[in-house]
């Protein structure tokens, strides 16, 4: 089983070896898609692979240690009314979460592929993309 999560943590929680613990103690395969830290804390986007029980255990471990855990679907949102389907975003999206259907000319947003990197946000001319984390 695989799942993508957005982690937010306080400066205190930033000092813990959480990735190591997810791997060593919860037997998860961890793919770090994005990580950043600043004076108010850190954000990380992880893809976790493993048994369902282990994923649940890992997420419980994170929550118990003060790490905010949210599904990736709450990472980036598209305002469908604002989108003009111009396609500016499709060439810059590193994970091809934004693609154009060549038949209809419509741009679709596949949230499962999105890693909330935010590259599309300031590239979108009608400002239809919003990052929530």
């Amino acid at each position, binding site marked *: 089983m695989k799942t993508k999560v957005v982690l937010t943590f306080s400066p205190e929680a930033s000092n813990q070896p959480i990735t190591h613990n997810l791997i060593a103690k919860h037997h998860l395969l961890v793919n770090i898609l994005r990580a950043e830290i600043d004076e108010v804390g850190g954000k990380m986007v992880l893809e976790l692979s493993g048994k369902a029980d282990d994923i649940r255990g890992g997420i419980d471990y994170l929550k118990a240690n003060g790490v905010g855990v949210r599904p990736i679907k709450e990472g980036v949102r598209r305002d469908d009314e604002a989108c*003009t*389907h*111009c*396609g*500016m*975003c*499709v*060439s*810059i999206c590193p994970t091809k979460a934004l693609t*154009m259907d*060549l038949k*209809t*000319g*419509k*741009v679709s947003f596949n949230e499962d592929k999105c890693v909330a990197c935010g*590259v599309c946000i*300031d*590239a979108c*001319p*009608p*400002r239809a993309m919003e990052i929530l984390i």
Partner: protein
Amino acid sequence: MTASEFKEYVKANGVKKAAREVDVVTTGTFGAMCSSGAYINFGHADPPIKMQKIWLDGVPAQAGLAAVDGYIGATALDETNNMMHGGAHVIEDLVRGKAVRLRATGHGTDCYPRKEIDTYVSLRTVNQAVLMNVRNAYQNYAVATNSSAKTLYTYMGKLLPEFGNATFSSAGELSPLMNDPYYRTIGIGTRIFLGGTQGYVMWEGTQFNPGAPRTPNGVPKRPAGTLAVIGDLKQMNPEFLKGLTFTRYGSSLGIGIGVPIPILDEDMARCCAVTNNDILAAVFDYSQPTRSRPVLREVSYAELRSGDIDIKGKQVPTSPLSSMYKARQVSEVLKSWILKGEFTIQEPVQSFPKDRPLRTLDVRTEREAT
């Protein structure tokens, strides 16, 4: 028929039959068109004011006409908002029926004693509100890419470093002037679809350059013809008029334009049968900050639309800046108007010039400029 339908029809039935059977082809484009704006007559205040400076929602509008006429340009920017809010957004807000804040100052004269006003206006409260764009619907444009090591923010969008992507802005085979490459049916007075209502071509667009290099079928390979257009802002539809923001460049107006092309003869049918395979554009490196950037290669719109192109051996993902989805909508709406008899084809009252040199701005002495 829409331009897309016509191309399919010609493929199946040939040019001769298409010329016999089809009367009108509707084209369409929806893209960022910076040389756009609207003039507005606000009506007179009491006591009256001769406006010398005007702001609409904080965006400076051009005064310097008579007392209460102003022109708001699409790329005029609100100085306090980090290039994120400009004239294009104000125009969209007006079309959406919103009230916008009007501030104006004047010197105060015997006939116009008032020196300032701070109020709200909307399309309901003003006299004329007319979209008047001096350069729209470029007949072909460029492909932009970036060879440098840093991301560039341009009017051609976000260009990733080291040929990370390439952007292009023409609607290609759907675009009005691509289907009438020598301006046989499009000229001054042509009735068009503009921002969701009927408008007109009022002149050749600025930087009109019919002498651009062309392929053997007549389609320009570089930016060539342009249209200056006009229409009633009060009748426009926000579906086809949108304020856009290009990061670190500023605002621009996304606008839908459609031109009906009467199939006068076989030659016209052949022109309207043009496809993305036949239309070429030049790829330019926008990291070169000069007027004459070198051409990296020429590429067809079919390749651009496929999702990536080859630049110096690298597969580079491409992005259109003009919406094919909306361009098709424009051509379909225009077709439906014509079929319902709501829109009639207007023959131009005057054709565009056949040659027009494209001049540049250089630093000259008074004598050199005379």
